[in-house]
C-alpha cells in the first residue's frame, strides 16, 4: 500500500519561514558588509578583482544551480525514471569545467572597463550593435528562464504553507521584490558563495537521506524498473521507466529522453550551457589572478557542487519508489514537481524541509532577482545608454529601477496563466538557446581571433529565430516536431553560422586584437 503524502502543519510553516528569513538576513548582512568595504557600486558588483578561488568556485556553483537543479531535477527523476537523467544533467561537471577553462579570460576585459557580458562583446568586436543584440537576446531568454524559477519557489511555498498555488506565486513575486529592495540582487560574489555552499550541503544531505529513506539503491532500482510512465493528470501508459530512453511519441516535442537524438542534444546542451549562461561566465569578472594549484581547487569545488543536481535527481527516484505515480495526478499544476518537497518533509522532517525551502529560495528567488536586474540593465545600459550615450547616470538609475516592475511581472504573468507541468524540461528550451548562442559568441570569441562582429550578429539572430521555432512555440508550423532535432539544429546551426560568417568577413586589425589576446606560457 502506498503511504500517504505528508501534510504541512503550522510547525512546518513556521520552520520554512524562519529558514527563509535566516537566509535572507545572512545574505543581506554579507551584502552590506561587503558594500562597506567597496568604494563604488561597480566595485561592489564585480569586486576589486581580488576574489579568490574558493569564493569564485562556490559563486559559480550558485549561479549554475538554479531552481531547475536544486528543485526541478526531482520532478524529472520522479516523472521519467532513468530517462529523466539526461535533463538532470549527469554530465554537467564536464560543462562547468569547460566554463572554468574558458571563462577565466573574462578577467582580461575588466581591465578594459567591462562590467557586463554585453559590454565585453562591445569591447571584443568594437560594436555597439553586438552589445545591443546580446542584451536583447538575454532579455528574451532570461524571461523564459525566470518562469521556471517562479514555479519552483511557488511550489515549495504552496506545499509547506498550504497556500493556493496562485497565491504562492504572488508571495514569490513579493519575496523577489523584498530581496531586490534590501539589496540582495547585486549577487556579490560573497553572497553567491554563501548560497553555493548552502545549496551543495542541502542537496547532498537531502539526496543521501532520501536514498536511505526509500530503502537503498537496490530497492529504488527495482521499484523504478517495475513502474510505467504516467502523464501529468494521471493518464497511465504501458512504457516502463527501466530504460534510459522513454519512447512516448507525444513527448517528443518537449522531452530530451524520448530517443537518442534527444539524448545527444541534451548532452551537448550541458556541455555548452555553463559557458553559455551569461550570468555564469560573468562570475570571473571579479576574480583575482589564480595560480595553477588554485585552478585545481576551483575544479574540486565545481565537482562537489556539480554533484548536487544528481542528488536532487535521486530524491525524485526515491519519491517514485515510495509513492508510485500518485503525484502525477496531485496538486495541479504542480504534479511531479512536488516530489522534492514531499520527500524533504517525509525523509528529513521539519528541519530538512525548512532547509530545503531556504535552498529553493536561494536558488530560485535569488536567480529571479539577479535575472530581473540583468534584464533591467540590459535595457538601460546595453540599449538606451548605448543608443543615447549622453543620458545622465541619474536617469539611467531611475530607468533601471522602473524596469524592475515589468521584468518581475512578465514571467509572473506567464507562470500564472500557463505554468509548465515539468519545469526543468520547460527551462531546457531557454538553456539550449543560451548554450547555442553565447558559448560561441562569448566563450569562443575570447580565444578565436578570427571571430568577427558579423559572425556574432548573425549567430545571435539565428539563435533567436530558432528559439521561436521551439516545437512548443512555432516550430510545428515549419515541421519541427522533435525537441532533439530542434536543439541540435539550434546549437550546431549557431556554430556553423558563427564560424562560416566570421571566416568570410573581416576581423579587427591585429594591433587592436593584441590587447585582447595574451601570449600563452607553458
Amino acid at each position, binding site marked *: 500500500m502506498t503511504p500517504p503524502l505528508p501534510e504541512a502543519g503550522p510547525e512546518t510553516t513556521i520552520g520554512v519561514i524562519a529558514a527563509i528569513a535566516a537566509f535572507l538576513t545572512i545574505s543581506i548582512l554579507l551584502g552590506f558588509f561587503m558594500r562597506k568595504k567597496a568604494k563604488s557600486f561597480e566595485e561592489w558588483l564585480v569586486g576589486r578583482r581580488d576574489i579568490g578561488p574558493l569564493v569564485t568556485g562556490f559563486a559559480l556553483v550558485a549561479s549554475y544551480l538554479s531552481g531547475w537543479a536544486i528543485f526541478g531535477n526531482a520532478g524529472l527523476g520522479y516523472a521519467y525514471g532513468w530517462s529523466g537523467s539526461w535533463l538532470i544533467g*549527469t554530465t554537467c561537471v564536464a560543462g562547468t569545467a569547460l566554463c572554468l577553462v574558458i571563462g577565466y579570460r573574462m578577467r582580461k576585459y575588466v581591465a578594459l572597463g567591462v562590467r557586463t557580458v554585453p559590454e565585453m562583446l562591445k569591447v571584443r568586436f568594437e560594436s555597439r550593435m553586438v552589445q545591443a543584440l546580446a542584451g536583447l537576446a538575454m532579455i528574451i531568454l532570461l524571461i523564459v528562464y525566470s518562469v521556471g524559477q517562479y514555479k519552483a519557489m511557488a511550489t515549495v511555498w504552496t506545499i509547506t504553507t498550504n497556500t493556493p498555488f496562485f497565491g504562492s506565486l504572488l508571495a514569490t513575486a513579493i519575496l523577489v521584490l523584498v530581496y531586490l529592495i534590501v539589496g540582495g540582487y547585486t549577487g556579490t560574489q560573497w553572497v553567491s558563495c554563501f548560497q553555493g555552499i548552502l545549496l551543495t550541503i542541502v542537496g547532498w544531505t537531502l539526496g543521501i537521506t532520501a536514498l536511505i529513506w526509500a530503502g537503498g539503491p537496490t530497492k529504488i532500482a527495482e521499484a523504478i524498473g517495475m513502474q510505467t510512465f504516467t502523464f501529468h493528470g494521471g493518464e497511465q501508459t504501458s512504457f516502463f521507466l527501466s530504460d534510459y530512453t522513454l519512447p512516448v511519441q507525444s513527448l517528443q516535442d518537449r522531452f530530451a529522453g524520448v530517443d537518442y537524438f534527444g539524448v545527444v542534444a541534451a548532452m551537448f546542451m550541458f556541455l555548452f550551457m555553463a559557458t553559455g549562461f551569461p550570468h555564469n561566465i560573468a562570475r570571473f569578472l571579479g576574480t583575482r589572478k589564480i595560480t595553477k594549484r588554485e585552478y585545481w581547487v576551483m575544479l574540486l569545488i565545481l565537482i562537489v557542487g556539480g554533484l548536487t543536481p544528481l542528488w536532487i535527481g535521486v530524491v525524485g527516484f526515491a519519491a517514485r519508489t515510495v509513492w508510485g505515480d500518485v503525484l502525477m495526478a496531485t496538486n495541479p499544476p504542480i504534479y511531479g514537481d512536488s516530489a522534492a518537497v514531499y520527500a524533504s518533509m517525509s525523509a528529513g522532517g521539519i528541519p530538512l524541509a525548512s532547509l530545503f525551502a531556504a535552498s529553493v529560495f536561494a536558488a530560485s528567488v535569488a536567480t529571479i532577482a539577479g535575472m530581473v536586474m540583468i534584464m533591467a540593465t540590459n535595457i538601460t545600459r546595453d540599449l538606451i545608454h548605448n543608443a543615447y550615450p549622453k543620458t545622465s547616470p541619474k536617469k539611467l538609475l531611475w530607468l533601471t529601477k522602473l524596469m524592475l516592475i515589468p521584468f518581475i511581472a512578465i514571467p509572473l504573468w506567464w507562470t500564472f496563466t500557463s505554468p509548465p507541468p515539468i519545469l526543468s524540461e520547460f527551462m531546457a528550451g531557454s538553456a539550449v538557446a543560451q548554450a547555442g548562442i553565447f558559448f560561441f559568441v562569448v566563450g569562443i570569441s575570447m580565444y578565436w581571433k578570427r571571430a568577427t562582429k558579423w559572425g556574432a550578429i548573425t549567430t545571435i539572430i539565428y539563435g533567436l529565430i530558432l528559439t521561436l521555432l521551439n516545437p512548443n512555440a512555432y516550430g510545428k508550423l515549419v515541421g519541427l516536431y522533435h525537441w532533439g532535432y530542434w536543439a541540435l539544429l539550434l546549437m550546431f546551426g549557431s556554430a556553423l553560422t558563427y564560424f562560416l560568417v566570421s571566416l568570410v568577413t573581416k576581423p579587427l586589425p591585429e594591433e587592436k586584437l593584441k590587447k585582447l589576446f595574451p601570449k600563452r606560457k607553458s
Partner: protein
Amino acid sequence: MTLRNVKETGMSKIHCLLAIMILCIILVPVTAYLIGGWYAYWGHVLLAIIFAVLAVFIKTQYYWEED
C-alpha cells in the same frame, strides 16, 4: 631534443588527451544503453569528472596564460 621535437611531442600528448575527452562523451550514451540503472547514472558522473580533469590539465599544463 630540438625545440621543434619538444613542441611536436607536446602536441601529440594534447591530441591524445583530447581523444580521451571525446571518448568520455561518446561513452555516456553507450553506458546508458548497455549497462543502465545506477551504474550508468554514476558512471556518467565519473566520465564527466575524467573529462573535467583532463580539460583543466590541458589548460594548466599547455595553455596557461599570465596577465
